[in-house]
């Protein structure tokens, strides 16, 4: 499996989740374990660009796949635009949910660009607040930093639109 661009080879028991493999075997601790049952989104990573809950994936099922975590988003010292926007808009307090929020937002913007509808839209149009909240509904924030998170995403979506 490739993790953030580097080939990794590991030997894990079949029941080990992708989350545990990343954190405990590879030391990639950006993805967080909030609930271990798919309900909080803190473990969100990108698998071949698709956002998934790493806690609900078996590591062995991702043999040969490209996994991207928060650690893999920046280019050298240049933050990913969403990382920078989260800082600018105070899209975090304790930061526990943030790696998952940002990975989720990266995929969410890509889904929206590809015309994916959500439960609140018929035709996927502008990313307004309701759209962003619905499309980010798989990521909880116990600190309630939602306003900053939405503003950060809106900001980046706006930059893309320009």
């Amino acid at each position, binding site marked *: 499996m490739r993790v953030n661009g580097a080939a990794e080879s590991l030997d894990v028991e079949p029941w080990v989740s992708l989350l545990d493999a990343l954190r405990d075997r590879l030391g990639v601790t950006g993805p967080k374990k909030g609930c271990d049952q*798919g309900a909080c989104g803190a473990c969100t990573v990108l698998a071949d660009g698709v956002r998934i809950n790493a806690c*609900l994936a078996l590591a*062995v099922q991702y043999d040969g796949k490209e996994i991207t975590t928060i650690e893999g988003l920046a280019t050298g010292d240049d933050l990913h635009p969403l990382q920078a926007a989260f800082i600018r808009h105070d899209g975090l307090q304790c930061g526990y949910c943030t790696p998952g929020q940002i990975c989720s937002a990266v995929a969410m913007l890509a889904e929206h660009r590809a015309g994916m509808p959500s439960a609140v839209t018929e035709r996927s149009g502008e990313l307004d607040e309701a759209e962003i909240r619905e499309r980010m509904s798989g990521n909880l924030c116990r600190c309630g930093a939602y306003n900053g998170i939405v503003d950060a995403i809106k900001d980046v979506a706006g930059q893309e639109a320009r």
Partner: protein
Amino acid sequence: MDFLRPTTWEEALAAKADRPEAVPIQGGTDVMVELNFDVRRPAALLDLGQVAELRAWGMVGGFCRVGAGVPYTTIIEELGGPLPGLAQASRTVGSPQIRNRGSVGGNLGAASPAGDSHPPLLAADAVVEVESRDRGVRMVPATAFYLGVKRSALEPDELIRAVHVRPATGPQYFSKVGTRNAMVIAVCSFAIALHPGERRVGTGLGSAAPTPRRAYEAEELLARELDWQAPLDPALLRRFGELCAAAAAPIDDVRGTAAYRVHAIGVMARRTLTWAWNDHLGRRAA
């Protein structure tokens, strides 16, 4: 624990026949929760993720044949036209992350009375294609698939290969009551499908009985009394809601009381029929 990793459907069937106790895993959004919390530590896991055909859909004999592993995201993106009810229900499952992995096959395999795909499958007369190495294919109508809470007609040596659903010929709607929009198991849900060619309306109730079920008496009422050219008669709409509510046999649990569920089914039945009827008349006028 053994990990079985077939790459073709034939290998998968052989593995299940040789190891009927093996637990299939597709998207893992149900199975992994059990593994992570040690609810079960099965003797073997049968990973279906390498069987590419399970993630494909196509038209077969006038039916839309949806592979058991097709994720909800694909249903939303590609099947909103032919299977609007199932696509609407898919939009409400879990979260975007869950929908990227979770599948209708997994929803059927879990056979939870709260599974969101069941009501639209019932309303649209879906048929489940199951297969074993030794006894071949069985086509099981959705109405005969659900046997009890988390129990289905699937035999231990069988796997679900696909569901077959006729493309919609009329409006379809899905409605679900939950405490918030995302990641909630439905308190109860309701699906409706108009079949104007047959002058018939299909229904599906979720979380309203030990199994997902149809409201047959309500369907019969409409088959008898609905005038397909006219606006909806409010009295008929009310009786439809009452008969749908009467078809429910729910329980009290942490998510809601039985009485609330019966009430909610009646409300959703009236609401979805009204939406569907407006579309139907609009379509005819257009």
